[in-house]
């Protein structure tokens, strides 16, 4: 135990050394920029915290607490994006009674920047999802669902580029195959396209054409499938693509204690993260950019 705390302290100390002993905000105003990515997934209409008598998650979660936490992080760093990886709907009577109205209104109050679409977001049909769009002041992004022949046409973008303190952040969305998972009568004419091929395309467009400094994939594919290793998943996606810096996942309700560092097709590192489900955790990834290229040795330090 002593060994562990020693190493943890060392890590903290070294990161402080890296910051030159300055506070984060003053550091950012000099020649370094910090982008904070906050993320959730599979919240499944869990608006209230679990009750004190809940068998698995007593007193955990709750969107009011999440709101306060996020507000604090935004104060610390205004260059923050808040993202959700889908399955916003279904899981508590809030959804059954209000059809997702409350979920979208609250996410708007928390100033979510973008969300991708999970399979359960079709639970009231594609018309049910469409009906709630006026309550969402954030973008829905999905690059591999073709909504052309549905009511969602033109309401979902493949990607969105955010500009924070001069840093271009490209975020694209990916959804899971709907056949066998969602009734056809619910997703109607939504067409599922191969997520790996789409991701290869998207990352090229965002990095090379749009010159993004950061490329983030917001995925509802699932972390990985042990019994079906060929199935499209975040780990497979990381391996098969390039130019993606971070994959934020969902669907499998995987509680990762810390982000996974995977290697892409070029052997470069890709972070893959997922924070389980039900709003029990918030994921936080900080990207530090240095504008003075000569100082840094062309390396990126990853601390997880």
């Amino acid at each position: 135990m002593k060994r562990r705390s020693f190493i943890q302290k060392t890590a903290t100390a070294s990161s402080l050394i890296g910051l030159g002993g300055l506070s984060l905000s003053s550091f950012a105003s000099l020649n370094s920029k910090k982008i904070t990515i906050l993320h959730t997934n599979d919240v499944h209409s869990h608006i209230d915290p679990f009750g004190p008598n809940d068998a698995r998650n007593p007193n955990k979660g709750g969107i009011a607490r999440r709101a306060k936490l996020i507000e604090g992080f935004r104060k610390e760093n205004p260059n923050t994006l808040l993202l959700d990886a889908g399955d916003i709907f279904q899981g508590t009577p809030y959804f059954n009674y209000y059809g997702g109205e409350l979920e979208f209104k609250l996410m708007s109050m928390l100033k979510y920047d973008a969300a991708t679409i999970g399979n359960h977001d079709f639970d009231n049909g594609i018309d049910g999802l469409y009906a709630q769009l006026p309550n969402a002041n954030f973008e829905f992004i999905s690059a591999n669902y073709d909504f052309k022949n549905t009511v969602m046409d033109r309401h979902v973008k493949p990607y969105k580029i955010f500009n924070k303190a001069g840093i271009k952040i490209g975020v694209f969305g990916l959804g899971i195959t709907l056949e066998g998972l969602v009734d056809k009568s619910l997703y109607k004419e939504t067409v599922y396209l191969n997520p790996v091929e789409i991701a290869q395309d998207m990352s090229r467009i965002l990095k090379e054409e749009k010159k993004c400094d950061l490329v983030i994939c917001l995925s509802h594919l699932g972390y990985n499938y042990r019994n079906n290793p060929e199935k499209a998943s975040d780990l497979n996606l990381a391996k098969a693509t390039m130019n993606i810096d971070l994959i934020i996942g969902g669907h499998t309700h995987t509680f990762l204690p810390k982000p996974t560092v995977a290697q892409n097709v070029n052997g470069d590192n890709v972070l893959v993260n997922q924070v389980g489900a039900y709003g029990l955790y918030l994921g936080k990834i900080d990207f530090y950019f240095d504008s003075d290229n000569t100082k840094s040795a062309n390396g990126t330090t990853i601390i997880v």
Partner: protein
Amino acid sequence: MSFKHLFFVFVFLLTFNCKQNKEVHLNKIEGKRISIDETLEGDKAIEEFITPFRDHINKDLDSVIAYSVGDYSPRTDKLETAIGNFLADIAHEQSNPVYKQRTGNDIDIAILNHGGIRAGISKGALTARSAYQIMPFENSMIVVKLKGEQIKEMIDYLSKAKRANPFSRLSLKLNSDNTVKEALLNGKPIDYNKTYNVASIDYLYNGGSGMHFLKKGDDYIALDYKLRNVIIDYFKKVDTIRLKTDNRFIKLED
């Protein structure tokens, strides 16, 4: 030990391709998760926004809509339970008018799965919340036409499952070796040359619990009627419920 700990704070160094942007360089990435628990204060404005919605739901969910004269648990070592019989019977009773209106026909059999009954019915006041506890899933009623051959498969499935899978209007007597001694529909022998209208839930139709015979049926109709709403509607319709087993599914002793 030290290896594991080293991994915990392992610092990855890598070379990033900087060709795209000469202005900025990604220096460092730091990732972690933050637990949302009772140590965190809640945002007041968010709390105030949620309150009226929560109050409305709680009032609605906790309004008494029926009374139960007894405790009925789905737990059993037998092949039928009072609550299972009840759910299959009301699934039939509530779905039949919907199906009849759409097709002009009646539902012959309703079948559910034992594992889907997630809670029992307790003696006393029943509320919509009780229905949510019994059936937390969003399963909806469906009807398919099954040929005699598939009805045989269904009976075979039921006889081998060794579970109290609930059904309505059917009665099954098994021999001690689980072979079928007698299968009756509405008290009469089943005509395997006929086609029967079988009601179930979409989850089972799509292969849940291994009830693959349902998917082989024809003229699939989704009734757009959730099983939970079947329960709530029935509770509202009646004053008191009194459930019983009636030996519709039994195994004979040697």
